């Protein structure tokens, strides 16, 4: 049974003037314990919205449909009531811009221990010991738990945010661009830390990022999002070497080559607006392989290998 499965997840935001923005348009994902899924896509394609929806954390202006299965049970169905018991104990998150994820007027340790107390896992002295352990796990001295967030550097705060996410030993970790805004050295350290921790703890992780090379390095699986939909998902190897969707191929081509032989290519054009319905394939205006049905018919879901899915009319690969 998957650690986390998402089925046909939709999110709409109410906009002023009665309009709607269809930010997530039916995505499916599945993760086994120990798997790391890289969720990539251009800015605004709905990555953050999708993972916030998985924990029921969207603002009231959002409506959500679909199913989010944790160990088989749908946690989305009953709203906050079914979601709350699972928050942090089964599914935890490292937020985009985790710099501000800590309350400035409470100590870091206090905030790490908070969910432990809430879930009845540890309190008082035991919670302090556990907090120290967690900080040590991410390479911060346990004594620093009595410090305030502003006394931590950016990289340390990010590590502390990871320690906080691991507090209740969740089975699923959602990490939203956990390394942006950090310098390159620290980025590499944090990433290595996440990989090591997920291996050691058997965590399933969704790693949201813009950074494709990072996915190749760190993730077993990848999902490419475009305009609120999953363009293609499969193992990182499959997506890299045998992409089925032209967008996947172009993303890899647009990535600077480590050997520096190819010039960096960017993908011309811009993604479609999400507050208007799209006809046909949303990638069609930018696609170099677009043909007959692309402009008029929404591409069906197709699969070649088990677990390697795409939404594209092309049949022989991109």
């Amino acid at each position: 049974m998957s650690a986390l499965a998402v089925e046909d997840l939709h999110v709409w935001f109410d906009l002023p003037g009665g309009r709607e923005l269809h930010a997530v348009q039916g995505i499916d994902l599945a993760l086994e314990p120990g798997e790391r899924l890289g969720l990539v896509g251009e800015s605004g394609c709905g990555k953050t919205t999708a993972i916030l929806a998985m924990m029921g954390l969207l603002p009231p202006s959002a409506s959500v449909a679909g199913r989010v299965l944790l160990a088989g049970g749908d946690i989305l169905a009953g709203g906050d009531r079914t979601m709350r018991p699972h928050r942090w104990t089964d599914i935890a998150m490292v937020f985009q811009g985790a710099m501000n994820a800590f309350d400035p007027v409470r100590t870091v340790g206090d905030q790490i221990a908070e969910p432990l107390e809430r879930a009845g896992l540890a309190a008082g002295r035991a919670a302090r010991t556990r907090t120290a352990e967690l900080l040590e796990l991410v390479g911060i001295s346990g004594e620093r738990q009595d410090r305030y967030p502003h006394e931590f550097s950016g990289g340390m705060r990010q590590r502390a945010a990871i320690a906080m996410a691991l507090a209740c030993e969740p089975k699923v970790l959602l990490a939203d661009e956990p390394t942006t805004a950090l310098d390159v050295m620290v980025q590499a350290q944090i990433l290595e830390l996440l990989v090591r921790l997920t291996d050691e703890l058997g965590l399933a992780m969704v790693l949201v990022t813009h950074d494709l090379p990072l996915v190749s390095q760190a993730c077993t699986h990848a999902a490419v999002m475009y305009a609120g939909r999953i363009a293609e998902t499969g193992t990182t190897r499959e997506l890299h070497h045998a992409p089925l969707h032209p967008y996947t191929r172009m993303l890899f081509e647009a990535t600077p080559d480590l050997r520096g032989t190819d010039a960096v290519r960017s993908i011309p054009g811009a993604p479609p607006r999400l507050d208007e319905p799209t006809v046909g394939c949303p990638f069609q205006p930018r696609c170099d392989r677009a043909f007959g049905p692309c402009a008029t018919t929404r591409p069906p879901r197709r699969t070649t290998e088990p677990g390697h899915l795409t939404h594209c009319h092309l049949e022989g690969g991109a």
Partner: protein
Amino acid sequence: MRAGWSYVGRRALFALITILVAISLNFVLFRLAPGDRTSALRCQGCTQEFKAQVRAEFGLDRSVPEQYLVYVKETATGNLGRSFVTQQPVLAELWKPVRNTIPMVLLGTLFAISLGLTLGVVSAWRRGTITDRTSVWSGLLLYSLPTQWLALMLIFYAAGPLGLPTSDIADPYLAYENPGWWPELVDRLQHMVLPAATIGLVLFGEYTLITRSSMLEALGEDYILTARAKGLSNWQIVRRHALRNSLLPIVTLIFLSLGFILGGAILIETVFNYPGIGLQLYESVTERDYPMLQGGFLLLTVSVILMNFLADLLYFRLDPRVTE
């Protein structure tokens, strides 16, 4: 440890310097005012010699710098002179009405804090609902109404039905009956209710609006999303995270308004004929009682500065980021 004492020391020094500036300004302002004690002497037989004699008696014939030095020195030792009217020491004369004002102002402020903060928090949490709209509108209304008008409305519409006195601080006939401390206390409180309610209502509007907006700001912060993700209940989120952060600006506001209120009580105390510092100052102005006025204004200034200082200290306690 934070460099706590150096912060406190610096704030204290700053407060002292401000007080000195206030004393000097106070001196200058009163020299600039038209007329002196002798121009209020309107008796028929007041000859020029007599006026000169009075001027000499009060040191008004000396040079201005001399007067200034004397003023600063005497103020520093707590001697604010004698009231022209009663011939009693100013400090003691001021203390009597201040003693009446403080409990009244505190009562009103407590009322405003407890209701304003509660309503502000609830209203932010239930943003956009009827509760929210009602409290925003009532807050705006109360905040924008002229104080004295509000006081009059209370006299017209609340005093009668509630059987509350509208003037003075105690029933003058009660003392003759020698009824014991309990009825006297009740009587005092009854006289305090309407002026306190006026202050309370004005502040309540302000506190509600400001609590609401600072609460809304706090609720939009990333750490609130974290708290929700950690599975905290709504109440826990408000109590543990949103409230403390949104209180930071409110604390300053409350202390500042406490400082200003001694002066702001002039209108209210005049309407209710409540013998507090406001009424006293009003009377001193009409009497041209310079020593009382100088003392009174100094007292108001010092109370503002002191409250400011207290606000700084409390802010320091509440916000770990404050070190510089």
